[in-house]
């Protein structure tokens, strides 16, 4: 299914600028939400840009739109502010990917919707 403009543009603050939210109890939500657990409210928070790999895998085949990058590494990353998210890990020798690897966020093209559709950008991580 092709990603169309409204669905793409709505997530730009998160994909380009890592805009998250932090609740009174200090938990970070990325993306920000309409409702937080326990009825808490949250303030804007920008994610830390560096962190470490918590767990990872190397895909031999990915979805069609990502197949040119295969084999590629995916990681769940814990950023230095405690927030966690999922990202592709690139510019790395796949044999060196490991839990605990220090990484930083980099702006990359995530996918192209065919030859004629949108170019979709966002965050990946690279070894720091």
């Amino acid at each position: 299914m092709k990603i169309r403009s409204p669905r793409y543009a709505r997530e730009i603050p998160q994909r380009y600028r890592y805009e998250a939210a932090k609740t009174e109890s200090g938990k970070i939500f990325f993306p920000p939400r309409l409702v937080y657990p326990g009825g808490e409210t949250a303030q804007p928070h920008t994610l830390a840009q560096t962190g470490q790999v918590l767990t990872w895998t190397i895909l031999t085949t990915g979805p069609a739109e990502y197949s040119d990058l295969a084999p590629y590494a995916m990681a769940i990353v814990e950023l230095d502010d405690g927030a966690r998210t999922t990202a592709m890990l690139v510019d790395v020798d796949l044999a060196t990917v490991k839990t605990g690897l220090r990484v930083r966020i980099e702006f990359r093209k995530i996918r192209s919707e065919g030859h004629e559709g949108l170019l979709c950008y966002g965050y990946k991580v690279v070894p720091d």
Partner: protein
Amino acid sequence: MSEVGIVGYGSYIPRFRIKLESIAAVWGADAENYKRGLQLFEKSVPGPDQDTITMSVEAARRALKRAGITGDKLGAAYIGSESHPYAVKPSGTVVSEALGATPECHTADLEFACKAGTEAMFLVYSQVKAGVIEYGLGIGADTSQGAPGDALEYSASAGAAAYVFGAKNILATVDYTYAYMTDTPDFWRREHQYYPQHGGRYTGDPAYFKHTLGAANGILEKSGMKPEDFAYVVFHQPNGKFPMEAAKRLGFPREKAVTGWLTPWLGNTYSGASPLGLTAILDVAKPGDRILMVSFGSGAGSDAFIYTVKDRILEVQDLAPKTRPQLDENKVYLDYGRYAKFRGKIIRNEG
């Protein structure tokens, strides 16, 4: 108006490389001949997830770090490239949005073959000087293509350089600018064509040298300066040979041109070429150093700048990745097959 100049600078070079031999082997060409003739050994290659926009964002973030300002302070952002990812839809707005500069940021995409980067710098500098904006961003970035088997395939590479201009916290003042343009059809690409055309040997004296030397002589005359007054000179560098020849013809000793000379290992980053060369100079420059920069864009024209480095340079050089380490370290070499796949040179199914 008081001084205006560079407040921050940043560079981004992708990690992938391909050696000239790998390209020559596929086309049955004489690698050594090309290496000698072009003075070029290898070039950078963008990954499938990299383009003019992604490299511009990273280079700009580094420039903002050195400038010590946040993106919302930018009043304008211009991206010069001949490989904007969209034919219609600006690269500039993606970059401005990513930097947090929107919505109050005048944004434009520029093109003028390899000169589009210094064009962006020229326009942004002018807006600051005129007092229209407080800070502005000018970027030169490209992921240009050379037609398979053509001479340009050995050199067309990828990279980005970004400059923040302002009137405060200057690390290098802009003392003089000069522009030299003519209609000279040495290299072009028609709409809907995938690869550019070029005039072969016509791209040399009638194009590159005429405009580079024309702009250089023009700015030297305007400023009353001579090669001895400069610590560094950087030219547009489509191959390793032309910029050194230009230096020689203008009377600059080789040592002054070497620091900004990246093409032998980087390839020709088109709109990023002289801007990236300048970042390599700024990475090691000392207060008081004077720099001459002359770009060249086919079609044709050259922008010239004279900069004087200020004390603040020493505070910012280490704040972001330098250019030479990005060029020399952590390289990943590709074979021609992977290179062709990354550069979209292989016919695929639609969809």
